[in-house]
């Protein structure tokens, strides 16, 4: 059924004469621009258009496809880079050149590439939604499991083996249902799971302040809010690089083009610490930069999470980074204000909170329909205006997520990176992980960690006094506390993402570093008690060496040396007295 355009106002187009349902995809105007129905008023429908609408006129034709906005799921997702509505950017480049023009449609999955399909079911087997019917080696380390689409079931009448494209039939069920390696799924609808489980293992990120102090769970949710330039993107990219996860979905939502270019440049070169393979082989990128159409920005988050769910359904641990969820919220706001909806707080639509929680709800550790376990960890960057955390997006996000990494402009300004504030941040998973850390890192770990946090808290209290009287007026033991806390901050918490060694830190290394600093503190305390002057303690060479040991390639050897020297130096101090 064809209708026509009634009104055009930026990305929002009102159409008439065509019957629609909410979220139907419609083709708008002479060029058939892709749009989605986001409102219905009487016989008019309101459409958000995913492409530029300059020059589009009332009276131009409109066609309803009758389908919801969907993504294509199947082999070939990994290593891809898509725009917000799953158009492959390399394909857009060949079709329309270096600049993004409009009116070009492109399939999410390549129809020409053949994949080697290995069946895992045989004729007569009963399968249902989520069952695995075969596998494809998608990249060297990722086996793509071909799933029966949710809602479909039957007995296998025919199953093939060999090379196929994603749209060729590989399996026929009784009743004639044909299955291909590709399935489509509407992005706004969560894919079903068998059961949600409690997350119980940490996602190791190789970042000391995260793994050490504020860990997130595999299947958990975390938010990283901070003013501009405080380190959201660098942190998200560090997570995408070093997390011990199977699959990474990275969404550049309304952010910079150069940052995406950077990822594209770097990821094929960097190695996955787990497999030694290029990071790109486990990654799906979605890049809808700030200057790309705002409606597609709104969709990008859904496109990303749906792809993440699909790999989870295969039984993988997936991490999803969304940078930045604030730009997504703003896209909602922009569209909503064009619709002249009643605004809520700061002009955001009243459904902001609902949309945010629906999104984060799609994270989790689950039993899949096929009976495996999979997880999606969601880490959302938040960009509060003026760095003020009391604004609606930050506040609504914090009500949902379990981990809060609070970036701090002050820290960033003095180049303390990651600029995560250790006093304001929290993780609600820490207690749940004690057992894991005890078993996998060290039985001492929990105590070391708690002591470190206490030390930093003590420092903050003492700093208030210092602000009034100066540090020299403090008794020596308190001066020492300040010094050890400084060591904790500079030697342990600070981690340079751009240093080839320091960029990633194993749990083992974290433990040894933390232990060495703590034990320096303990010995220094005893030395002081027995009358050694503080300046002698602070002048020890081992203290100085501890500062830089994290940069050493042969860390274990270096820290063994320092620990031995530390023993030696403290012994001498005592003797000298």
């Amino acid at each position: 059924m064809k209708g026509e355009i009634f009104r055009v106002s930026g990305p929002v187009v009102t159409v008439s004469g065509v019957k629609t349902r909410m979220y139907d995809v419609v083709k708008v105007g002479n060029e058939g621009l892709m749009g989605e129905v986001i409102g219905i008023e009487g016989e008019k429908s309101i459409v958000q258009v995913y492409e530029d609408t300059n020059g589009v006129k009332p009276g131009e034709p409109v066609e309803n496809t009758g389908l919801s906005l969907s993504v294509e799921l199947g082999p070939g997702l990994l290593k891809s880079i898509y725009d917000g509505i799953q158009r492959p950017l390399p394909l857009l480049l060949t079709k329309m050149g270096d600049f993004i023009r409009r009116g070009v449609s492109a399939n999410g999955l390549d129809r020409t590439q053949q994949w080697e399909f290995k069946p895992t079911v045989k004729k007569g087997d009963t399968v249902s939604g989520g069952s695995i019917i075969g596998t494809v080696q998608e990249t060297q380390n990722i086996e793509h499991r071909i799933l029966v689409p949710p809602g479909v079931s039957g007995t296998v009448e025919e199953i093939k083996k060999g090379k196929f494209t994603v749209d060729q039939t590989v399996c026929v069920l009784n009743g004639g249902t044909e299955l291909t390696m590709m399935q489509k799924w509407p992005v706004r609808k969560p894919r079903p799971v068998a059961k949600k489980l409690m997350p119980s293992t940490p996602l190791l990120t190789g970042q000391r302040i995260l793994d050490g102090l504020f860990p997130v769970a595999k299947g958990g949710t975390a938010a990283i809010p901070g003013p501009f330039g405080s380190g959201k993107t660098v942190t998200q990219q560090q997570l995408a690089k070093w997390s011990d996860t199977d699959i990474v979905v990275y969404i550049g939502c309304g952010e910079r083009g150069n940052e995406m270019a950077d990822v594209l440049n770097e990821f094929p070169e960097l190695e996955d610490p787990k497999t030694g393979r290029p990071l790109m082989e486990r990654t799906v990128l979605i890049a809808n930069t700030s200057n790309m159409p705002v409606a597609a920005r709104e969709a990008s988050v859904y496109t990303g999470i749906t792809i993440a769910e699909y790999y989870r359904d295969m039984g993988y641990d997936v991490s999803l980074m969304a940078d930045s969820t604030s730009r997504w919220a703003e896209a909602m706001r922009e569209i909503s204000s064009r619709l002249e909806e009643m605004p809520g707080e700061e002009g955001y639509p009243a459904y902001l909170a609902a949309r945010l929680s629906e999104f984060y709800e799609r994270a989790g550790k689950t039993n899949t329909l096929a009976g495996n376990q999979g997880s999606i960890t969601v880490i959302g960057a938040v960009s509060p205006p003026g760095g003020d955390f009391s604004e609606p997006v930050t506040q609504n996000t914090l009500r949902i997520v379990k981990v809060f990494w609070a970036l701090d402009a002050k820290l960033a300004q003095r180049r303390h990176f990651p600029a995560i504030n250790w006093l304001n941040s929290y993780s609600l998973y820490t207690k749940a992980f004690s057992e894991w850390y005890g078993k996998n890192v060290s039985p001492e770990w929990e105590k070391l960690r708690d002591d470190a946090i206490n030390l930093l808290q003590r420092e903050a209290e003492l700093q208030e006094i210092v602000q009034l009287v100066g540090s020299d007026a403090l008794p020596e033991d308190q001066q020492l506390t300040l010094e050890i806390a400084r060591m904790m901050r500079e030697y342990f918490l600070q981690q340079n993402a751009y240093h080839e060694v320091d960029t990633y830190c194993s749990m083992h290394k974290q433990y040894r570093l933390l232990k060495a600093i703590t034990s320096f503190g303990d010995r220094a305390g005893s030395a002081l008690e027995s009358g050694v002057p503080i300046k002698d303690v602070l002048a020890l060479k081992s203290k100085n060496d501890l500062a830089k040991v994290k940069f050493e390639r042969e860390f274990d050897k270096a820290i063994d040396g320092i620990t031995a020297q530390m023993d030696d130096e403290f012994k001498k101090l005592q003797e000298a007295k």
Partner: protein
Amino acid sequence: MTKEYKTIREIAGPLIFVEKTEPVGYGELVHITLTDGSRKRGQVLDTSSNVVVVQVFEGTGGLNSECGVRFTGETIKLPVSGEMLGRILSGSGEPLDGGPGIIPDDKLDITGAAINPYARLPPKDFIQTGISTIDGMNTLVRGQKLPIFSGSGLPHNEIALQIARQAKVRGQGEEFAVVFAAMGITNEEAQYFMRDFERTGALERAVVFLNLADDPAVERLITPRLALTAAEYFAYEHEMHVLVILTDFTNYCEALRQMGAAREEVPGRRGYPGYMYTDLASLYERAGVVRGRKGSVTQFPILSMPGDDITHPIPDLSGYITEGQIVISRELHRKGIYPPINVLPSLSRLMNSGIGAGRTRDDHKAVSDQLYAGYAEGRDLRGLVAIVGKDALSDRDKKLLEFADMFEDRFVRQGVDEDRDIERTLDLGWELLSELPEALLTRIDNKYIQKYHPAHREKEEEKAVAPAAG
């Protein structure tokens, strides 16, 4: 010839509402003929079968329902040609210099299409500006957008000009051009720029777009788009490296706010439109390097922070889009330090890809980090000293306090025409750092301390000299 309508139903601020018959395209260019025969231009903001909303660039003064409105069927385009270099144009692209009209090679849509992120090449060519606080600690690279955040009465124009004069990619004699766009600045300020361009001969390699304080505010909304279209043309068609100076973005944003108010939109923070982020991004993101193309667009926008408040929506939203910022400080300016750049809130996010061995020098990152750490701590201590006095400080703190003063006096301060190369800047950094106890240099790998720290350098040199003497 397209049809002329005389159906203006309503005029509100810079907007006119035209009732019309035939369909009009969104974003179309509109010609309006006044009753006295003069002409104005506008753009379609909203179009429906009943009514079309047009924003009028030159303002709606003198308009009434008798005026003729013609929809051109085209979006706004800039006629471009290689001959544009050396020309001075108005904020809407008309020649102001008495020269002939531009005979176009092409007409380009001024909205500019987004660069496909996949087509971008990560910027990495170090641009030496000769200013230590920038080169040493907030390095600029080709294809970056790095704004100056300033305030009224601060010397941002001097700094922008010094950069325009001194900026170079070392060892490369490639073609460059400057595009200068004035948005609502005073005639005097504009003259200041023009004189300097003329004095240094830069004008020959420049295209200037002037929308001055007394020009219509709405026109400001297209001025930067014209400028960036010209910049892209020179970068991608003529393979030039283009430096775009856009000033003052605050005036641009005010015009945006005015438009929003005229359209009775729900305002966002502090009255600015909710889409200001997206709008600004559509300008700032037009910087970059495209794979396989020789030229590049580097942006140097200037904005004055209302009330020196960096959390004000204009600097705030800008900072969220640009690749860092250079912050000018009133405090340093009062102390008589030029250029009064406060490095602490300043940042260049692309610094890391532009520096290091083979680009600048291997110790660059470490020196920069250490200078930051030292200066930040030293500055904090000033506050403390004001309360407890200098004597209450530990020796360590006293050193840091002195370091902060020295840093401002010797590293930050330099002459308006002083062009320091990067080696000079880094060596200067070492000279200052060597005043601190070595144990405080925790950000620097030992190998660089051995190689560059004046104390060790001298030893190295002595060692080198000794055998000859003996």
